[in-house]
């Protein structure tokens, strides 16, 4: 009989599954997360895998991981250090031990820690025996061996038996968290519906792991994380890249303009291209171009022809698109450019995240080429900001650059499913047939947007292009005063967008000792850190920006109510310098990190504490 286990009730917990690239850690983590979500936990996930597709087996280079942060409270991030590490081989332990909190629980597949495995990972002695893990709660389980034994009555070959060890460890985790197995059993049944022996092997391994965890003495307690208080509604788990794709589809449907995507594969943006390719039933036209330039140029052509046009990329691709972005600015055509940022310069670190494309987004074009720039701040928020990017672009007849990042793109969180009909209306200024007043650059007096005259419409034949044009008539012109007028109009048009975006919100009191300023993908970490310090009684607040160009109208007002301001970014100070330029009346401190890694809550609270202590 299994001994009665203690129940450990926790607010939140960070779990990381790590193993060799072939060990199925992404699937294990995803299933674990889905089951947690069904149990009502709030959560955020982040997959961490190597750039190489199949690095040498069982080496540190080939380690693949999946981190999930779950809680019975609102979860803002996928967590920094983990409370529970599941390591399927020595290499994955070696690569990830530094991310385990002191005293963390570590579950290892003991059968993988043989001489050969240890040596491949670069361990001179077995970490399970040499005392190096003494400060952790180590659970050694011969997972591979037990999985094979559990399948002795199932007709599967050795290789398949070996492969199901991820289900065994998932079963163990389900016991540990007292989860229901039904959702995963059902998933297995659907996934392998035409291979009954594979269904059986996976299901048996899952249950065997659950039962093993129940009997083993090393697992003395189970963990209870109750449902998080969440708004009523229908939910799903979603990654940032998928949310971006869906937000664009929603904007297309709501505006009535068919979606055209011109794009070239690039990490970490490719998933948006792949996702939209699946949705031809919604009329999405997806053009996988021959290069980044053709991606944006085809999108500009499609926009001229009347589509809601999009191009997606990451930093190096954005550099290649610069000239064409200027073309979209001068032709005053709607276009959404999504830049899923990664660590640069040049190829940099493609699978690692950074916020270092901000200045390129704002200013990286020849001539005076202002552009609306907005940034999403979490995986699910990509849906809303992609939608808003498309809305602003079409209604104001100017390109919009949406910044997300690799961490957000690959990471996931729970998403409250909206109804498209409840989303804000999108009304592109389409010129009606035979409009007697139509001129290519005649404008709406309020927004300064010109009309969208779509080829095929009677009575609206016109020519536009990259050469400067006269205002209203749209004839080619090098007239000095006309050029200055057009430059100023294009600038003014973008600045007036400030009248159509929400005011900047402050997390916490609207006045105090320290205002933390952030933008984009760091919101979760900044909110967690600021929230912690607010609980401890500090007069600290957070202004986290999503609208960057133009800035919200009340920005100066927000800044003016704090004694000190610190701008935190994952770059060398791009937003802070933009603020020094746009709002020079304030003094800004800065905290920067350029390691291809997110902020950690602890590092932030230390920085903020020090500033608050300095008088």
């Amino acid at each position, binding site marked *: 009989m299994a001994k009665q286990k203690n129940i450990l009730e926790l607010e939140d917990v960070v779990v990381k599954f790590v193993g060799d690239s072939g060990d199925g850690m992404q699937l294990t983590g995803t299933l674990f997360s*889905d089951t947690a*979500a*069904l149990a009502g936990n709030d959560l955020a996930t982040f997959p961490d895998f190597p750039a190489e597709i199949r690095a040498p087996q069982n080496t540190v280079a080939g380690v693949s991981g999946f981190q999930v942060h779950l809680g019975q409270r609102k979860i803002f991030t996928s967590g920094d250090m983990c409370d529970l590490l599941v390591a399927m081989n020595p290499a994955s332990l070696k690569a990830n031990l530094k991310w385990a909190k002191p005293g963390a629980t570590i579950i290892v597949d003991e059968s993988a820690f043989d001489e050969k495995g240890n040596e491949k990972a670069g361990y001179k002695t077995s970490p399970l025996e040499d005392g190096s893990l003494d400060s952790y709660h180590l659970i050694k389980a011969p997972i591979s061996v037990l999985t094979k034994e559990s399948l002795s009555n199932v007709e599967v070959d050795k290789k398949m038996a070996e492969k199901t060890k991820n289900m065994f460890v998932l079963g163990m985790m389900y016991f540990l968290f007292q989860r229901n197995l039904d959702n995963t059993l059902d998933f297995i049944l659907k996934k392998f519906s035409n291979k009954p022996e594979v269904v059986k092997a996976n299901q048996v391994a899952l249950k065997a792991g659950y039962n093993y965890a129940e009997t083993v003495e090393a697992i003395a307690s189970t963990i209870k994380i109750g*449902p998080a208080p*969440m*708004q*009523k*509604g*229908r*939910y*799903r788990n979603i990654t940032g890249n998928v949310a971006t794709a*869906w937000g664009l*589809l929603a904007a297309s*449907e709501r505006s009535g303009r*068919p979606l*055209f995507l*011109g794009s070239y594969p690039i990490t970490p943006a490719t998933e948006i291209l792949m996702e939209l390719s699946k*949705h*031809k*039933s*919604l*009329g999405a*036209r997806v*053009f996988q*171009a*021959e*290069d980044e*330039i*053709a991606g944006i*140029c*085809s999108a*500009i*052509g*499609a926009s*001229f*022809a*009347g*589509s809601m*046009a999009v191009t997606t990329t990451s930093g190096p691709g954005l550099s290649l698109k610069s*000239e*064409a972005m200027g*073309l979209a600015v001068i032709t005053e055509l709607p276009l959404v450019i999504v830049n899923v940022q990664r660590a640069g310069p040049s190829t940099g670190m493609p699978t690692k995240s950074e916020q270092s494309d901000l200045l390129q987004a704002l200013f990286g074009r020849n001539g005076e080429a202002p552009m609306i720039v907005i940034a999403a701040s979490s995986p699910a928020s990509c849906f809303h900001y992609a939608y808003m990017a498309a809305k602003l672009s079409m209604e104001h007849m100017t390109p919009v650059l949406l910044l997300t990042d690799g961490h957000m793109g690959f990471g996931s969180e729970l998403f409250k*499913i*909206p*109804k*498209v009909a409840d989303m804000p209306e999108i009304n592109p200024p389409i010129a009606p047939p035979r409009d007697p007043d139509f001129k290519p650059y005649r404008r709406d007096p309020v927004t300064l947007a010109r009309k969208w005259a*779509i*080829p*095929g*419409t*009677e*009575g*609206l*034949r*016109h*020519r*536009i*292009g*990259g050469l400067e044009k006269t205002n209203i008539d749209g*004839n080619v012109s090098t007239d000095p005063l006309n050029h200055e007028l057009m430059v100023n109009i294009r600038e003014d048009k973008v600045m007036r967008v400030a009248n159509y975006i929400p005011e900047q919100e402050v997390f916490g009191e609207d006045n105090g000792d320290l205002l933390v300023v952030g933008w984009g993908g760091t919101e979760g970490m900044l909110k967690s850190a600021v929230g912690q310090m607010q609980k401890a009684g500090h007069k600290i607040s957070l202004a986290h920006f999503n609208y960057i160009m133009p800035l919200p109208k009340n920005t100066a007002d927000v800044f003016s109510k704090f004694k000190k301001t610190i701008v935190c970014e994952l770059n060398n100070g791009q937003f802070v310098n933009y603020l020094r330029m746009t709002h020079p009346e304030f003094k800004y401190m800065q905290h920067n990190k350029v390691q291809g890694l997110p902020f950690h809550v602890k590092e932030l609270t230390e920085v903020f504490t020090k500033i608050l202590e300095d008088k």
Partner: protein
Amino acid sequence: MLDKRIEKSPVPLTKEDFASDQMVKWCPGCGGHAILSAVENVFPKIGYKKENFTIVSGIGCSSRFPYYVHTYGFHGIHGRATAIASGVKVANPDQSVWIATGDGDSMAIGGNHFIHIIRRNIDVNILLFNNQIYGLTKGQYSPTTPMGKVTKTSPQGTIEHPFITAGLVLGAQGTFFARVPDNNVKLMTEVLYEAAKHDGTSVVEILENCIIFNDKAFSSVTAREKREENQLILKHGEPMIYGKDKDMGIILKGTSLYAVKIGIGGITEKDILIHDQFTPDPGIHRMLGRMMGPDYPVAMGVIRSVKSATYDDMVEEQIDMAKKSSNIKCVDDLLNSGDTWEI
């Protein structure tokens, strides 16, 4: 066949329907004027509604073209006309899309997009103004400038092997290629009509004189007193005969073409190759495209015109198919697909 998808004009159109109010700013004597004239001739003849033509261009002298024709027009950036036009056609297949580009725009800075639009066989018509020089930047050599030519950037003569446009187009699996001299507007109009009828990317190379920076570059082929001897005007189904006295012809011997005189060495008219522009085998088309003086005449007219599925048609088919077969009919369906739960 003209495109059934594109709406026809309910009334007959004339040249005037496409006349622009803009001053044409090409140099007097530039080959561009003849091309403009041929396009204004052929658009009414094609008969689509005048709102259903879009002209896209890149950069260079050729690329001012959209301003001179009263249609929907888009003047792009250097090298990218083909990429922009790809977007126009895929997004809006009801447009008859025409591209005006030059040798530098299409084969140097825009070389990549040029070969890929051809490979995809998107249903557009490319007017390639080949004057073998960069005109708008005032006289630097281009990718089609003959080797050894002295230009502003090759004072000792170029040391680059030029592209032969036909070779590049056919190498990229081109389905339509034609060549015309700029001083034969009648032939150009006929060929442009053929290009409009072709389903897929049609490339019409126009040997265009640049009177300022590369005058008489093609005069050995196009000059009045030489053209009959040095041009082979191809007609589908007819023998490849040329010359003032119609006594010269092209034969196939072994794996090569030869220019021969009928009556000499036992050659009779029966030995002369018959032009087949519709054969999918590109072998003879390639050889015809490469012919040049002094040993050969230059082939003019439609060299190749073969049927092949077009990208834009296949896009429509896939969308229709997906709309019929998918359960996801609207974005709400998509948002609620897969694993979701109520809280």
